[in-house]
């Protein structure tokens, strides 16, 4: 173990009092974390002990119309995908061996010094770093390098469209500020509960903190806001935005007030949600909890605190109560010079920025696609890219959208792969669409070819030739097959002619089968109809 440590560390730490892979912090578990179980019930409304979350969510929505509204603001931390940490040259890889990507600087050793950006914001041409000071074992220097009074950007907004299944609608949420800071390490609490350990791999990784205006009113709005930020950072390529890995973390502030009241209610912060769906459910749960307390005259039970979302019980629990406002004793970071941006630099970046989700959605909408299609195609950067690329090869937008949202999406879902992992190229999809349109193959054959291309690759032409799938559009050839099928099924022919005209389908199927699916269905039905009725 100790050997692994020394090999993994770029700079062996000589303090022999802390052997092992982690820095052992202390014997007892942190009291903050143990506090939650016993205090959990305290603010739980007694009237609603064991209701299902779905019910609670539904009720929250109903109760809102009964005189209350929720106010929601979100602080989002986005881990930037930089090659190195913010203020030293260590790499960061999620899941690396604990304390393997650290150096004296990010571990806060004596004498070390720190080194030295789409949300429609005003960019500060000159900003600076500040120190935010508090003690915690995951914070090696005893302070976090952050930005206090001059954030890198402020006063922006995000546009988004709510999913159709949630009622749809366009929303615009304000961004208060965006600032840069460094991440802290991670605490790991042992099973036996007798000590905690610190992994400092993450310490010093650059973060963007994006603070929203309290503009959201429901869980779905908040979840969609988070999802839109994820799309934006992914579109920009600045972060993988992965919530499970902690690359994108949302802390949500929720308060409830009677409709018409202008001041906010007491806000509660919720942490520990690792999916957008969890954000949605956690907020709706919290809203219903607070509204119930209001209704039962227990509004004073709503206190300023941090609550954790517990996925297993689908509830929020008290993590820690706030003892007034923490004094972080911010002051300007003396080890780092001011950050000065030139307008040339900002212009250059604006020019090189890719199309963002909102612009993409508006463009797709203008193509005449339905909002459902728009959201499906634009929500995932890779799918949007595939779709655009297919269109560039001349494909019809609606047809391409149908193929992507149909067979391709089904395959992606079944195989749990992303669209850029399949063997089908946008060029071949456009070829496929063209081949159907010009009658070379039937839609049915098209589906077969698509499956082949997704799994094995190749070209539409290649598969058609290889499998001899060219549509039979020669009336004489089809006539021969129709004649044969009619001759082979005299009984059905008799019934047909006796008035059971539905049997045309049976005959068509038989002919199609005989042609191995290649007969042109329009021609087939025309010839078949003529033959069946020819007496």
């Amino acid at each position, binding site marked *: 173990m100790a050997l692994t440590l020394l090999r993994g560390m770029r700079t062996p730490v*000589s303090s022999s009092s802390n052997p092992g892979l982690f820095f052992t912090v202390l014997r007892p578990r942190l009291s903050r974390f143990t506090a939650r179980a016993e205090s959990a019930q305290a603010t739980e409304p007694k009237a609603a002990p064991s209701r299902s979350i779905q019910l609670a969510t539904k009720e929250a929505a109903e109760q809102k119309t009964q005189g209350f509204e929720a106010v929601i603001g979100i602080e989002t931390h986005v881990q930037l995908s930089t090659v190195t940490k913010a203020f030293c040259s260590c790499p960061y890889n999620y899941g690396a061996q604990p304390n393997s990507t650290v150096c004296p600087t990010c571990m*806060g*050793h004596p*004498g070390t*010094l720190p080194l030295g950006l789409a949300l429609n914001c005003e960019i500060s041409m000159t900003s600076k770093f500040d120190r935010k000071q508090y003690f915690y074992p995951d914070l090696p220097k005893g302070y976090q390098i952050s930005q206090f009074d001059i954030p890198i950007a402020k006063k922006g907004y995000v546009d988004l469209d709510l999913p159709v299944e949630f009622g749809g609608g366009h929303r615009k949420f304000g961004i208060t500020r965006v600032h840069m800071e460094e991440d802290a390490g991670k605490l790991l609490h042992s099973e036996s509960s007798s000590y905690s350990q610190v992994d400092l791999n993450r310490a010093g990784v650059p973060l963007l903190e994006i603070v929203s205006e309290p503009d959201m009113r429901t869980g779905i709005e908040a979840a969609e806001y988070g999802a839109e930020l994820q799309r934006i950072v992914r579109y920009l390529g600045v972060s993988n935005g992965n919530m499970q890995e902690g690359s994108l973390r949302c802390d949500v502030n929720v308060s409830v007030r009677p409709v018409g009241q202008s001041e906010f209610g007491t806000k509660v912060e919720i942490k520990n949600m690792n999916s957008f769906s969890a954000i949605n459910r956690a907020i709706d749960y919290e809203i219903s909890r607070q509204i119930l307390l209001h209704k039962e005259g227990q509004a004073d039970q709503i206190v300023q605190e941090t609550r954790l979302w517990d996925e297993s019980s689908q509830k929020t629990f008290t993590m820690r109560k706030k003892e007034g*406002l923490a004094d972080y004793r911010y002051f300007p970071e*003396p*080890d780092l010079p001011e950050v000065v941006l030139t307008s040339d630099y900002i212009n250059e970046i604006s020019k090189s920025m890719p199309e963002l989700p909102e612009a993409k959605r508006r463009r797709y909408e203008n193509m005449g696609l339905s909002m459902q299609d728009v959201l499906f195609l634009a929500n995932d950067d890779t799918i949007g890219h595939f779709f655009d690329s297919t269109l560039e090869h001349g494909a019809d937008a609606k047809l391409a959208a149908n193929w992507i949202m149909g067979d391709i999406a089904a395959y992606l879902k079944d195989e749990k792969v992303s669209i850029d992992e399949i063997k089908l190229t946008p060029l071949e999809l456009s070829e496929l669409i063209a081949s159907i349109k010009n009658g070379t193959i039937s839609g049915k054959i098209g589906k077969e070819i698509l499956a082949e291309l997704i799994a094995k690759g190749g070209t539409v032409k290649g598969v058609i030739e290889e499998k001899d799938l060219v549509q039979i559009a020669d009336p004489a050839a089809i006539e021969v097959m129709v004649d044969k099928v009619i001759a082979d099924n005299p009984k059905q022919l008799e019934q047909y002619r006796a008035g059971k005209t539905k049997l045309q389908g049976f005959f068509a199927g038989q002919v199609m089968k005989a042609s191995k699916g290649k007969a042109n269905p329009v021609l087939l039905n025309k010839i078949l109809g003529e033959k069946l009725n020819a007496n």
Partner: protein
Amino acid sequence: MPSILTFPFPAPHQSSVIPKTRAYQRRPENLPAGRRHAAASPGPPPPHLPPSPPHSRSAPVHRRVSLQSAPATTLAPGPATSSILSIRESLLSGERTAADITSEYLSRLRRTEPSLRSFIHVADAAAEREAVELDRRIASGEKDAVGPLSGVLVGVKDNLCTANMPSTGGSRILDGYRPAYDATAVRRLREAGAIVVGKTNLDEFGMGSTTEGSAFQVTTNPWDDSCVPGGSSGGSASAVSARQCVVSLGSDTGGSVRQPASFCGVVGLKPTYGRVSRFGLMAYASSLDVVGCFGSSVFDTATILSVVAGHDKRDSTSSSQVVPDYASELVSLDLLESKPLTGVRIGIIQETLGEGVANGVISSIKGAASHLEQLGSVVEEVSLPSFSLGLPAYYILASSEASSNLSRYDGIRYGRQVSADDLNDLYGESRANGLGHEVKMRILMGTYALSAGYYDAYYKRAQQVRTLVNESFKDALERYDILISPAAPSAAYKIGEKINDPLAMYAGDIMTVNVNLAGLPALVVPCGFVEGGPAGLPVGLQMIGSQFSEAQRVENPLNNFCHFIQGNLLRVGHIFEQTLQNLSFVPPLLAES
């Protein structure tokens, strides 16, 4: 020796004027008689100084540098000589081996250390090994075996990180801590061939003015073992004064190099903020901290600065200004004209010669001022109205930054950890046991000054004062090339004298803190004595220049010739030192042997 031509220093055949033995070995006999109070009568101007040669060129000019005007056989006290040059000369000529030189210093170190206690850690065995290795390389005729600082024993203040030695910052909380890396300044010294002989004592994390604030030991003053050596770099100053090492590194946040240099009678240089990388210096107050150096001559100090200065990507506040060869323009006396400082404008800061400043100090400084006048400069009194505001502003800013910088000493990742049942107890007890009284007091002051509701009244106001101090210096330095003042209001005082009176100790920093607030360079050169101790106590003259005026090169675009500005700090300090007659700053401790 083929390597000779590559040296930036004199070649062996030019060595006739370079002393065969170092100055301090010859002088002790003359000490008592040779010293007198400069205050009584300033040294007369040098009788004859030949005209100056043309200005140095932009290419690395390896002009003949000889610091000894008198023949080597003279025993009369002369101006300070360069120990670095003399060691270099001995090694190149083969006259002495590095092992010889090292053992000479180490034996003096072993003899004097029991009374001085300058070092927290002595790496004598490693120093001897490195010397033997150097000798082997010289003997085998290895090209470039002798670097600019080869065989030069260096003491390093213990708040500078060293990879193979303990680095405690004078604090119990880092007892036994061995960093994984060398501070940039230390690395550069080693790369130039220097031998790090040990880690010198200091006030804990540099907070103090007497070195009594060390968690480990009290260092004494080589001029009087009942006196403090000053601080916080007291160990580094004392070690150079007693020739336990050739030169040393210190750090200066509010005067921690200059005041002990004054107390111990050595040359101390506080470079411009950003001139030397702070990487590996345990931060006390990041916006004020600089790495500085001590030597027994201005030349040695300038040589060290040339080696340690320069941009470092690991310190975002380090300057990318070109580093000149600071020693190259420090010419020997016989090459100087009779009034070498003609045209240099010097301002003597009025506010530093008034109430609260010892009479002996005032007369020494006035003596030094008239000496500078005799050298051809114009000396006038200048008033810096914001001068007295600097001290309180300094203590607020330094304490505020310290309260943040010292947060990392929490017992979690390294250093002393006190086991506790609760996280807050772990922090509290590790810090309560690991940190000393003065450090805790400053953390509390700083925490208070940065707290919500007090920030504007303290931290913000102090920053405003800092701006005023800056402007006031800027204004004065437009009219004068150099400003002079005492380095401290008194000479060395008794151990224990101010230990229970922090305000009295803080008041002693009045001369130096303004310079840190403005980020300016300042040089302290011994200039006289006051009564006290067995042989008087030295007084240092502080010379303050504008940013990066340690040596300013000016390039003539027409002919690509470069010259140094006449009024730069090291040149004026060097001329002052070399023309100081009849004063020798070798402590009586060395005469006893």
